[in-house]
Each structure stands twice: as C-alpha cells, then as structure tokens.
C-alpha cells in the first residue's frame, strides 16, 4: 500500500515537472520554429542554440514590475491567471502515460487516476479553463480585455459542442469513457489499431476544435493583437502575464496528449508485444512513444500557427456552428450505422 502511495506521489511530481518543462521548451521551440518557417534563425544567443532562452524569459517576467490597475477588481484580477494555470495542470491526472511497471511484484500503473469517466473529466476541466480567461478579462476593467474575454468564452463554448460530439462517436466504438481502457483497446494489430483509422472525420473535428480550445492561431481571437491590443491579458504584467502565456503552452501539451491518447494509440507503439522485452522496458518505451506523438502534435500546432492567418470572428462562428456541428452529428450517425451493421 505505501509503495503505491509513494509511487503515486513520485508520478504526480514527475508529470507536473514534465508538463512544465515541456511547456517551457515549447516557448523556445515556438520561437525557433517561427524563425525557421520564416527563413530566420530564431533566438540563439542564450546558451548553445539558445537553450537557456526559456530561463531568461522566465527570469525577465519574474523581475518585471507588477501592475494591478487601480480600477481592477484585485481579487478576481489575481484569480484569473491562477485559475488558468491550475486548470491547465489538472488535466494531466487522467492521461495514461504508460502501461504499468512492476516493482517487487507490485503492478504500478503509469497514470495518476484511472477514473472511469476520464474523458468527461478532461472536458470538465477544459471548460473550467475558460473561466481563467473570462475572470481575468472582466476583472481588468478594460474594454479590450472584456472583448477578448467574451470572444474567448463564446469561442470555447461553440467549439466544445462539436468537440464533445466528435468524442461521442468515438465512445460509441469504445464503449468506455476511461482513457486507459480506450488506449488499451488500440493495442491490437501489433499496437497499431489506432482509432484515427476508424474515426478520421471525428479526429479532424477534434483537431480543429482543440485549436480553438487552446486559443491558438487560426483561432486566437481572444488575444488578437491587431484588434484587441493584448486581448484578455492586456492589463497583465510580470509573472501574471507569464502564467497566462504559460497556461496556453501547457494546454497545448495536454491537448496533444489527449489527441495522441484517444486517436493515435497513446503509449502503444508498433510491435510492442512482439519484441519479447520485459514489461518494465516496454512500459518505458511506451512512455517514449507517447511523448514522440505529443511532440509531433506540438510541432503540428506550431506549423499551423506560422502558416494560417487568423479567422475573422464571423467566419469562426460560422465554421463552428454551421460546419463542424453538422459534420460531427453526421459522423455520429455514420458511426452508429456502422456499429449496428457489424453487430
């Protein structure tokens, strides 16, 4: 029993650390890739290849002057970024990072909490995330912030619907809401029975929606600089601003993890059961495989960001309500038909 608890604590700490480090270096990767996509070099002065740049950025944000506007609601003004950060870190609890490792005959699953409604939990926490944006934008008492916050809220709500609908089609196949079970179901056919093959349309919808949920280009309307100064974080400075920006990168990391888990087999990798390796080695390789998938998704997020310009607000809403939701419902109907047919 104690070994379980100790292991869980270690797991929580390492997942927390890992998401922070990944998010930290995503900021560097973002700037580097932006450079590469534009035939530039990106930041390369802080340390070899600019590897210390995130530390320098963090230090800069920490030492900047903190300004709380006089007319802002101080409590909510502080609650905004904290909430954004908190919800960003919470989702990682239900993601299965690997199968299990065996220590002294104990089976220790590489997942903090295998709750049987894992997907619902993810959705709940993700929808909480919008409160960080909303509260922060409202508490700033600034028109630009408020507009950004309203945009963020309406955008998240619109896209959550199609995201949920695309997941329903997936759940119809899996018959389970537990992330671990969904991952395990994808281990068939030499670990390549990925749901993206059975649910290409569902994955596409989910992918588009996760761009909207993480407020990234082409759906970064809540913070579009050209119209709204800084959007909901216009009034924020110092590390509070850092929290908002950082939460965005953690969100990106988490949505990549969710997509990799639900549609790309999670910790399953080709021929994982045919190599004849011991359970612990396979588990570790699985964690590596999941991370490679996650990093590829993060790269994809950035690739899209530096390619596609921002949508106009009416285009965004039309895409969400008139295209994605009908498509998602169509996907449910088709999936239902196919499931019935094969029964």
């Amino acid at each position, binding site marked *: 029993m104690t070994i379980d608890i100790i292991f869980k604590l270690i797991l929580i700490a390492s997942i927390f650390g890992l998401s922070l480090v990944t998010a930290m270096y995503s900021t560097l990767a973002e700037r580097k*890739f932006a*450079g*590469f*996509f*534009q*035939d*530039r*070099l990106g930041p390369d002065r802080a340390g070899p290849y600019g590897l210390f740049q995130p530390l320098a950025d963090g230090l800069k944000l920490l030492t900047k002057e903190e300004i709380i506007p006089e007319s802002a609601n101080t409590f909510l003004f502080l609650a905004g970024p904290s909430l954004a950060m908190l919800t960003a870190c919470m989702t990682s609890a239900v993601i299965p990072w690997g199968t299990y490792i065996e220590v002294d005959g104990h089976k220790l699953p590489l997942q903090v909490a295998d709750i049987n409604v894992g997907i619902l939990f993810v959705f709940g926490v993700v929808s909480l995330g919008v409160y960080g944006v909303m509260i922060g934008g409202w508490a700033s008492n600034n028109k630009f912030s408020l507009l950004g916050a309203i945009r963020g809220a309406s955008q998240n709500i619109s896209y959550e619907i199609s995201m949920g609908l695309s997941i329903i089609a997936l759940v119809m196949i899996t018959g389970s809401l537990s992330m671990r079970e969904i991952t395990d179901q994808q281990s068939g056919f030499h670990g390549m029975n990925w749901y993206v093959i059975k649910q290409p349309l569902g994955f596409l919808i989910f992918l588009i929606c996760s761009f909207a949920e993480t407020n990234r280009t082409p759906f970064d309307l809540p913070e579009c600089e050209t119209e709204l100064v800084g959007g909901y974080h216009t009034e924020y400075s110092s590390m509070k601003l850092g929290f908002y920006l950082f939460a965005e990168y953690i969100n990106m990391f988490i949505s990549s993890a969710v997509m990799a888990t639900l549609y790309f087999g999670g910790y399953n990798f080709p021929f994982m059961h045919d190599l004849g390796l011991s359970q612990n080695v396979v588990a570790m390789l699985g964690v590596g495989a999941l991370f490679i998938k996650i990093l590829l998704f993060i790269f994809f997020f950035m*690739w*899209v960001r*530096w*390619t*596609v310009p921002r949508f106009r607000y009416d285009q965004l809403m039309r*895409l969400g309500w008139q295209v994605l939701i009908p498509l998602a419902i169509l996907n449910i109907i088709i999936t239902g038909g196919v499931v019935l047919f094969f029964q």
Partner: protein
Amino acid sequence: MKSLTNRSKLVVNKQMTFMERIYLPVIAKGMLVTLKHFFRKSVTIRYPEVKRLFAAAYRGLHVLKKDENGAERCTACGLCALSCPAEAITMTAAERQPGEEHLYKEEKYASMYEINMLRCIFCGLCEEACPKEAIFLTNEELAPSVYDRKDLIFGKDKLVEKEHNPNGKVRGGGPLTERLYHG
C-alpha cells in the same frame, strides 16, 4: 479615368470556390509552402560575428590618409571644413619643423583635426573638396555607438590611419560580388 501608374487593379468581390470554402485543401497547400521554408537555409547574417560588406560606394567613417612614406597628407588648408554643410570639421594649422618631413608631407599640417560625428551627415563633400587626397570616407565602418556624446568628437588619434595603405579604404574599391561576407 486613366490611372497615373498603370498599376492600379480593379477590386473584384470574388466568391470563394467550393475548394476554397472548405479551407482544408488550401491550408494543406500553404503548409507545404511553409514546410519548404522550414528546411531552407536561413538568410540571417549573425551580426557581431559576421558583418556584411558595405557597397563599394558606401560613405562610412572618415580616414585621414598617409602617403607612401607614412607622412600625413593633410595640409590644413581648411577646404574640407569650408565645404562641410554640417560644419562638423574643425582644425588648427601648424608649421612643419625641420626633421618632421617623415611625419607631414606638406610644410603646413593640422596639429589638431576634429570631426564631430554627431553633426556629420556623411555626405562626402569633404572628400570631394580635399585637394591633397587626404580625407576619405571608408566603406568599412560606421560611427560606433557610445555612452557619452563627447566620445563622438573624433580627433586625429582616431582619424589618421595607422600606416600607409595604398588600396585599403578608398571608395569604389573592390567588387562586392566576390566575397559577400567577411567575419
């Protein structure tokens, strides 16, 4: 109405085709373009380590030339100061003493010669005015940035070249295409 430049375009409110309206094909096309750029060599010149050569005709920092014996060419005639539209040049003349022939080419020389780089507009008129081919604007260096404005009044210590250099400096020098960067 006839346009002035022949370059004006009529605005058309073109409807998007179906392929464009479903976005994905065009986005995929755009992403291929950016991916190509991702692997392309970057055009950045890493500045302090690598410097880009100025154009041959560039007017940069001044230099006071010496002749082939290492004697200063300037005779303190004051024509450069007179021609200078920014009134950036000032000097004091002195008479060459016997035994100083290896230092100064002419019988009169500038004991003090200053260019105020804050005033100078790098027009190159001083170079054109000089009858002795003593002052030139190099195409190699810019006036540096400093913390104190006083440091931008350049005296002879900074202006006179260290030793005779027949082809160094002098604008209109070597071709630029040969070697674009030196570092």
